[in-house]
């Protein structure tokens, strides 16, 4: 083997190395984006259940609606039901409460009602946003990890393949 051959082989190996590590860095960055979006989604869901709980215990609602919402919040906080199903149930409970005829007019005027309802709506909207951003990050990550090089060289390391979070998150039907 001549010296030039050696140089070419070493250079090629170096280039491949740089490329592979760049690709690995990309996948790592995508995983961090997923983690950040997931943390945001968790925080948004937590905030939604807190304000829903506040509404349930606020004494501005009729007792039946209060119990409906409190049950939803309890399910979300407990372990019995899978997370996505419990969160969807809370959405449906909120939707059922908000879509009662004259729900808003009957409450407005009560102490702090308007603020509280606005807070619940804002929290629900934030869940909608956070879930969209999270699923978007998951899909980008899954596409990057599906590519042959990433699969063969296991560029993602031990990180699990992130899953989409599906739930009913719309306050209006």
């Amino acid at each position: 083997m001549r010296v030039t051959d050696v140089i070419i082989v070493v250079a090629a190996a170096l280039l491949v190395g740089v490329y592979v590590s760049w690709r690995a860095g990309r996948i790592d960055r995508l995983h961090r984006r997923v983690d950040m979006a997931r943390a945001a989604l968790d925080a948004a869901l937590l905030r939604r259940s807190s304000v829903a709980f506040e509404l349930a215990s606020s004494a501005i609602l009729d007792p039946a609606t209060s119990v409906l919402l409190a049950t939803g919040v309890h399910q979300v906080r407990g372990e019995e039901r899978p997370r996505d199903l419990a969160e969807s149930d809370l959405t449906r409970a909120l939707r059922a409460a908000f879509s009662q005829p004259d729900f808003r007019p009957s409450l407005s005027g009560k102490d702090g009602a308007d603020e509280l309802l606005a807070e619940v709506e804002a929290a629900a909207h934030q869940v909608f946003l956070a879930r969209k951003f999270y699923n978007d990050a998951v899909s980008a990550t899954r596409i990057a990890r599906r590519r042959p090089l990433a699969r063969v060289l296991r560029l993602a390391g031990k990180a699990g393949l992130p899953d989409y979070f599906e739930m009913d998150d719309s306050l209006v039907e």
Partner: protein
Amino acid sequence: MKIGIVCPYSWDVPGGVQSHIRDLAEALIEIGHEVSVISPADDDPPAKPRGGPAGVPAAKAAGLPPYVVPAGRAVPVPYNGSVARLSFGFLSASRVRRWIRDGEFDLLHVHEPAAPSLSLLACWVATGPIVATVHTATPRSRTMLAAATALRTALEKINASIAVSEAARTTLVEHIGGDAVLIPNGVATRRFRKADPLPGWPGEGGAIGFLGRMDESRKGLSVLLRAFEILGAQRPGLRLLVAGPGDADDVLHRVPAGLRDRVILLGPIHDDDKAAVLHSVDVFCSPNTGGESFGIVTAEAMAAGAPIVASDIDAFRDVLRGGEAGELFSTGDPAALAAAAARLLDDPARRAALSSAALNAVAAYDWSVVAREVLSVYETVILGRDRGKVTA
């Protein structure tokens, strides 16, 4: 919140993306946030007085607003079928990097991230929460495929995307990948609220106004011209003021010779001169025959408090609250348009009532409302951040 906004196109040249960023930045500042915008711009813009057509006052030669940081000269290059003024290259990248380091932003908001300019560079150099807004529908070309890896690597860092229209959202989904929340453009109502009318307008005999492309049939100018034939014959002093690009001779030939001197064509006008035009007429007309999803021009006329006559398409019905904030006439019918306009021209009290109803209704589309929706995207993204500031 400290927000860094990246504008890809030259600040010195008027354009939709630039106005969007200006209005968003000012609304955010008004709410109480700290905003810095980096944009291609000449550090020392040459004062080019621009004479407006037909007595429209020229807009003031614009110095940069205090929140804009110039990123150096933009280079005119062909992009997307026209010449755009963009900033690219390592020098621009290092300027963006320095701006991010100095700014200590909580979040970056890049606009039109796929355009080969500052926004893409910002995505490339930055680490931290990034929100992107997609404005136009840009079909993916062969050349974009060649650069796909470079593009994807930068765009993958975006934590949340906003689309200003359903068309822009579809483009993002199909050609760049990913999903976006839809937040339509706002209306900068205070820019239209007050303006001096053009000299001599609206005049004794009354005036009707139109703003939009003269040669695009769905803007409906031909419906208005035929209505003006009817109205002009009955009202000797009535004039028609038309602003927008298109072939003037072609338009004048469609008007009977006896009425031609009462149809005044301003040609294309600058954004800053729209308000003056809207304040120069007694009745503003939106005769569109379809194809509008929102009707920004109609909303701007509402913001100017103009009494409006609009065709009865869904977009106008929505924005005019089913006719409460402006008269609706059956779409494409010149006689109905003439009758509605005549009623308004003869009834100053009704005009005043419509004007204040329009001002009231358009408040829901103001930038201050839209900016809060954008803020809730920022807040959602930041909710999950692990580190503090954006770094580069």
